[in-house]
């Protein structure tokens, strides 16, 4: 459907500018909404991760063989990266901390970063614990040659 001639004449003159301004205003509002949605989604995602971390810390149980789980407190793949520098939070710009915990919830990185490692202690930890002696059947006797 083509524009009516009147309308066509209107587009080429001042009425076009008004449309542009209206479009720009609409675009700005859309952008604002979009930004707001984006911020909300980022905040929501971070909040979700934090809740997840808290849950893992409180519900972790000690196991016989502790294993390491490596968790990075960073944005996950679901978050759309905001490349607009103006929207970057200073806190977000800092390097993300990496925490290492055992499944028992024991923190290892705090020890590693805050304390000097005593290698002799590590060696002691790695030595096998003495095995209790099993019953032995005496079958022979050593003595001066008979």
């Amino acid at each position, binding site marked *: 459907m083509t524009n009516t001639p009147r309308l066509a004449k209107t587009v080429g003159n001042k009425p076009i500018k008004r449309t542009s301004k209206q479009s720009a205003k609409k675009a700005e509002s859309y952008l604002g909404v979009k930004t707001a949605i984006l911020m909300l989604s980022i905040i929501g995602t971070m909040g979700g991760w934090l809740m997840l971390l808290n849950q893992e810390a409180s519900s972790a149980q000690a196991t016989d063989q502790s294993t390491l789980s490596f968790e990075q407190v960073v944005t996950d793949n679901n978050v759309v990266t905001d490349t607009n520098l103006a929207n970057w939070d200073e806190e977000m710009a800092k390097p993300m901390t990496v925490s290492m915990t055992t499944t028992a919830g024991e923190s290892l990185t705090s020890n590693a970063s805050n304390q000097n490692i005593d290698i002799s202690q590590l060696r002691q930890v790695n030595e096998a614990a003495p*095995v209790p*002696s*099993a*019953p*032995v*059947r*005496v*079958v*022979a*006797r*050593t*003595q*001066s*040659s*008979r």
Partner: protein
Amino acid sequence: MNQPPSFIETLALKAMGCHIQVHLDMTDIKPSHSEVQIEQQLMQLKHDIEHTLSHWEQIFSRFKDSSELMRLNRFTQSCEPESQWFTVSAELFEVLKLAVSFVDKTQGLVTPTLLQALCDLGYSQSFETLTNVLVSDQSLSVEHFQHARDIEFRVLADGSHQLKLQRGMSLDLNGYVKGWAATKLAEKISSQHPWQMPCLVDMGGDIAIGVPSTDNGSTLSSSQLVNSQSTNSQLINNKSPNWGVAIARPNALNTEDEKLSEYQALGIDLAVVALDKGGIATSGQDYRRWKCHDQWRHHLINPQTQQSAISDVLSATVIADNTLEAEVWAKYCVLVGASEAISWLNRNNLAGLIVDTSYQVVTSHKMTSTMIATS
């Protein structure tokens, strides 16, 4: 810790001047063989061991004039020129070479060249036939002191083993052969026999542990796997068991000693150790001793004095990688005295137990952690 053997069969023999017991771990054999099969194999094994011991006795005995060792000793008394090469058996070559290798390690105290000194002191026949009071009184000659380092060895292209001895040299290998024989028998049973049984061989108190070849890391040949009639998993998972060995309390030197009753209250055994490899031996002045003109002598000769060693060690027990080595170290501990013996054992990280002539029992650090029970 490995478990002790569940089923043990024991062969008892007498040879080389001592009582011999061979303990066989039949834990893996019994479930897969009938009683008849087992009995037949054990009879054959006993026969083979007796034959082997008889062969070694004919080589090493210093109480048989026809033995290879005594024929060699006679040759060296009158050989011209002063030294010459003699062809000997592979076994004599091996034991003498091992004996000479320990001379420097023991500062010359443990040496195979003391036959004449022993005979001069009266120990010229089998101990069981010695009487307490000996009539003969042969004077000692300093010329009998001979350096074992002068002995030379060579193997010819045709495989012949040869020795070169100085004229007048007299060899006695009794202090080495029992340990060597125990180790050889243990290897024969645990590695060469088709059943490859873990075992303990006790040659009159010198003890060797036999470990099947799978436990040493080497793999069995396909024929060995077929002949063993056991499953692959049983062989691969076969662990050398822990054999309990008691360390006997040595005889007291003086039956009128006031400490005797307290000493005898220790019981017949001083300690128990668990061994899964290697060897253990005991040497002392408590058993092979005799009186010669009102003076007690024993068989551990100090090469420097050519007399029975004067020592505060009543007996010494040492655990080593093989029984011949254990025997040499035990003898060395008697000859150097209690204090130096314990220091030496600790410096060399060896497990040793010393009983001194005051009936005090002292152990090296390694023995303390090796013992599983004490009296």
